[in-house]
């Protein structure tokens, strides 16, 4: 038995997480002593903490993976880059949601601390290389999200959504944990690298492992919102306050990607043959159900929910390829989708004001006449989601399809493209409503200058990245190259 010491802990590797935890505690304490009028202090502190976490991540970035906490925690480029993405996603959510939260009485300390806790959970998910730690991170994220969905206590829709999310989430967690325990049973280890080694040496019971994989895939499918484990998504997106919908729809998708990488691509790589086909079924179902059902939606938040489901289908296709190119494409997809979704929800909040939720597609009617600039921004978001060239979404889809075609899975690529075409319909409908119909709502846009500025930058980034997608894709590919087989 080895006695743990400070030096064997190597905790410096987890500096961003430790800092974030301390900052969260500090903000929690400071906030309880603040009056409502001074709540903005917590807000500024939260943003400062997030920016500082981001800086720590950038400062500590290294291509060489480093282990910590006795091999339970790893800081590799995959983890660092996805964490950076998550931090950006959370910052965007807070900036866009400030005005929205303020007029709805959600501008409370709990919003900030729960958001920070969720981020901490995501960061742990991205960095954990031990099944228990992975699970702890996931639960920290999930519990924070359940509470955040219910933040608007007086709204019966929110509480209903939270309850559904909680119960189904608990079920999914149970299934995931059960699957993990099966894998543990088959390999006698919880460590990602040890499991991979055992499987490589054919020391794992195949039946038991595949049994575990089924449940793990089920749990992961729930977290991503892949069909048939997607039922929570529309109700939760719709019921939750929009800024929480934004949080659920953006950063956790990156975390889920990293999580899947750790479990499937790293630990269970030897059983890729089995989980690939499972993911394929989920991916195809998600693409079909997500895109087709989105067409019938009149509520834009529900539409985004189904659109997320279909995008996660794309993401799964990339992972399913199980090649470095496929993983890189999926990573690229997750990161860019995070930015796109954040902008989409940001625009919904931009149009919302006190006592009015701009959550119907009809609320976007004639936006071009009310604000040509933000109509153009929404246009960029919609085009990017639909995958129209020059916008970043196109290159994300292209990378996935290239990976599929490279494997000879042309029929899957054809399904993906066909479903994108169906998907283009409902995105373009929003564009049509914005540009070719007359506004019914003439109130001026109430959002603050900060949200407007950041939102514009966010949207333009979708265009700018689309013009130069190579650099990001190369960075992510390199990151994965150094992360997947660290050879520690």
């Amino acid at each position: 038995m080895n006695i743990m010491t400070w030096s064997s802990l190597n905790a410096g590797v987890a500096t961003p997480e430790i800092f974030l935890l301390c900052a969260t505690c500090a903000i929690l304490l400071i906030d309880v002593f603040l009056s409502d009028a001074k709540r903005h202090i917590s807000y500024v502190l939260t943003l400062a903490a997030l920016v500082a976490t981001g800086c720590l991540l950038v400062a500590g970035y290294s291509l060489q993976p480093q282990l910590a906490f006795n091999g339970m925690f790893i800081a590799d480029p995959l983890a660092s880059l996805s964490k950076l993405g998550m931090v950006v996603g959370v910052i965007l959510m807070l900036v866009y949601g400030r005005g929205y939260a303020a007029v709805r009485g959600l501008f409370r300390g709990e919003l900030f601390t729960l958001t920070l806790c969720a981020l901490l959970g995501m960061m742990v998910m991205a960095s954990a290389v031990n099944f228990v730690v992975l699970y702890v991170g996931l639960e920290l994220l999930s519990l924070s999200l359940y509470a955040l969905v219910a933040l608007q206590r007086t709204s019966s829709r929110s509480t209903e959504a939270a309850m559904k999310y909680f119960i189904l989430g608990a079920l999914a967690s149970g299934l995931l944990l059960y699957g993990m325990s099966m894998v543990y049973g088959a390999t006698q280890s919880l460590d990602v690298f040890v499991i991979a080694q055992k499987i490589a040496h054919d020391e794992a019971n195949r039946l038991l492992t595949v049994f575990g994989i089924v449940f793990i895939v089920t749990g992961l499918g729930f977290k991503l919102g892949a069909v048939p484990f997607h039922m929570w998504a529309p109700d939760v997106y719709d019921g939750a306050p929009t800024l929480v919908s934004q949080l659920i729809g953006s950063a956790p998708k990156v975390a889920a990607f990293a999580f899947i990488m750790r479990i499937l691509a790293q630990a269970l790589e030897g059983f890729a043959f089995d989980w690939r086909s499972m993911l394929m079924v989920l991916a195809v179902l998600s693409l079909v159900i997500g895109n087709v059902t989105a067409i019938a939606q009149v509520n834009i938040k529900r539409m985004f929910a189904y659109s997320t489901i279909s995008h996660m289908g794309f993401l799964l296709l990339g992972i399913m390829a199980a090649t470095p190119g496929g993983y890189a494409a999926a990573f690229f997809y997750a990161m860019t989708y995070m930015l796109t979704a954040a902008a989409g929800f940001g625009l919904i909040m931009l149009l919302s004001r006190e006592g009015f939720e701009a959550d119907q597609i009809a609320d976007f009617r004639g936006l071009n006449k009310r604000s040509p600039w933000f109509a153009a921004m929404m246009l960029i978001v919609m085009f990017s989601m639909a995958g129209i060239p020059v916008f970043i979404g196109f290159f994300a889809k292209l990378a996935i399809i290239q990976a599929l075609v490279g494997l000879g899975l042309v029929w899957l690529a054809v399904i993906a493209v066909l479903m994108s075409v169906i998907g283009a319909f409902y995105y373009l409908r929003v564009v049509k409503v914005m540009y070719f119909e007359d506004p019914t709502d003439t109130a001026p846009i109430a959002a603050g200058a900060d949200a407007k500025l950041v939102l514009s930058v966010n949207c333009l980034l979708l265009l700018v990245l689309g013009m130069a997608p190579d650099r990001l894709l190369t960075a992510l590919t390199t990151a994965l190259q150094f992360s997947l087989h660290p050879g520690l």
Partner: protein
Amino acid sequence: MLENYFPILLFLIIGLLVGVAPMCLGWGVGKVLGTNKPDAEKLLPYECGFDAFEDARMQFDVRYYLVAILFILFDLEVAFLVPWALVLKDIGSFGFFSMMIFLAILVVGFIYEWMKGALEWE
């Protein structure tokens, strides 16, 4: 060729078994072995040793939840402290400070709940 369809057959059989077998079992075994003599007492909901005087599905104060959860939290804290105290000599300063960090986080939570008024009944 045909064995490719074996999983589907298996699925159907398992589905049938899961759905039908317990029903058949419960009904059949009860019919064979059981006697059926209901009276008023037997049909009442069970209530610890005395007569049921109200509907069991009554509402109760949500504050019980809060108190119960807080109790569990701090109860677990103490539960951790006991084994820790026993092996403190062996785990040295590392063990000591680890627990201090843990306690510090709990204290943060404690301050929070106190300030929020979670410990006051009214």
